[in-house]
């Protein structure tokens, strides 16, 4: 399979950017706070290395299966990031906020239905069923993730649930990238897939450019510190503990909802 100089340039840039992002996550100690996100960055680095060697020493078919196997992991990790963010926003005290639980389930159901509908409508000009399945599957994943992020944002603002700075930046980046991916996949479906199709190559480069911009955005935003918290004195902690004891019933009530 022939890759152009531009393709190798994109590979190099994404590889170095993801290494940079991993460094930021390590240096700012964000790996524990965002395990799925960190895993995605690690997968991207590993994928570049693996695909390079498969490209050099493997066959076209082995490259195809390796690429799409890793793409499935990538999508699963992105869904993991959606869960990670939802967890941070909608579980402020360790249990899902009871007033949004129903709306959240409804939102997920609607997102899956709409994404399924869009991918069903797509009829990619593909040569094999595998290409068709992959195109539809990628469209489904991109549509689902972009919907989930937008609806999460809407629900959290309606319910007045706050977003931390880093959580918001990860969500914005992934949400924007997913929206671009929906357009790209729509284009793939319309124009056809395969490197012999010029539109396919052009759209792929657009996607990679969007991805490069997204990773750069994350690296810069996550490098910045969130608003520093202040240390409570022992006296403050004692007083706060007293107030919390007074609302202890409410806290138990919040936690017991987990069992419902």
């Amino acid at each position, binding site marked *: 399979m022939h890759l152009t100089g531009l393709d190798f340039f994109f590979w190099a840039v994404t590889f170095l950017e993801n290494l940079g992002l991993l460094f930021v996550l390590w240096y700012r100690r964000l790996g524990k706070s965002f395990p799925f996100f960190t895993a995605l960055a690690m997968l991207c680095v590993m994928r570049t290395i693996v695909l390079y060697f498969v490209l050099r020493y493997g066959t076209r078919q082995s490259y195809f299966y390796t690429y799409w196997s890793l793409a499935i992991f990538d999508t699963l990790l992105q869904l993991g990031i959606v869960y990670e963010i939802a967890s941070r926003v909608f579980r*402020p*005290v360790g249990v899902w*906020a*009871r*007033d949004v639980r129903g709306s959240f389930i409804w939102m997920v159901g609607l997102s899956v239905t*709409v994404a399924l*509908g*869009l991918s069903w*409508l*797509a*009829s990619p000009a593909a040569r094999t069923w595998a290409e068709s399945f992959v195109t539809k599957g990628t469209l489904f994943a991109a*549509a689902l993730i*972009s*919907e989930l992020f*937008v*609806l999460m*944002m*809407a629900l*959290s*603002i*309606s*319910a*007045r*649930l*706050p977003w931390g700075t880093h959580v918001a930046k990860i969500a914005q980046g992934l*949400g924007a990238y997913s*929206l671009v991916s*929906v*357009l790209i996949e*729509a284009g793939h*479906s*319309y124009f056809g897939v395969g490197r012999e199709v010029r539109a396919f190559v052009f759209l792929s480069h657009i996607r990679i450019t969007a991805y490069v911009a997204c990773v750069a955005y994350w690296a810069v935003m996550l490098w910045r510190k969130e*608003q520093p*918290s*202040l240390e*409570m004195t022992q006296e*403050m*902690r004692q*007083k*706060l503990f*007293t*107030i*919390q004891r*007074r*609302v202890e019933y*409410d*806290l138990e009530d*919040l936690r017991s909802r987990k069992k419902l």
Partner: protein
Amino acid sequence: MHNLYFLSAIGIFIAALLSIAGYYYVRGRQSPQMTWEELIKELTWVDRNAIEQVALDLVDESGAAKGAGDAANLEPAQLWKLIGGLKGLEVLETNSEVLIDLAFYLQQWYPEALVIAERLRLDARELKWHVARLKAAVQTGNLQTSFPFYAQRAVVTYYLMTRRLLDLYQAVDFSMLAKLQEAL
């Protein structure tokens, strides 16, 4: 033709998502840059003595419901006058959102205050629910019968929110407490 449907669906999908995102982004862009003083100014004045009188008719100072012997004594007409009718409740509803912002303002600096902030957020949802019931009662012509029940509970919720917020500020940031007491 099939491709036309597909491309139309994609166009509608993208437009809908961008519209929803834009609307909620504008709606949500507020508190982080607001100073504490700006938040205080957002509070609308309410007669705290009237609020206290209505609330303590139903619950004691800790928020526990009064026993059967101490049953609510205020008449519906008195409740209406003290609360200020549906408009008065709408003011409480608006103020409750500011109370949440004040709690979250403090929580940005002291993350341990999260439990109180979350409790206030849920209290505000409960208050809104009571007000929504009354607005529905207006549509069905049942406001007069529904008002005493839902309005008094809404006021109790608001009263307890103010108590919790004042306790929180007293515990954590005494310097802001005086201004907050004055505003509430």
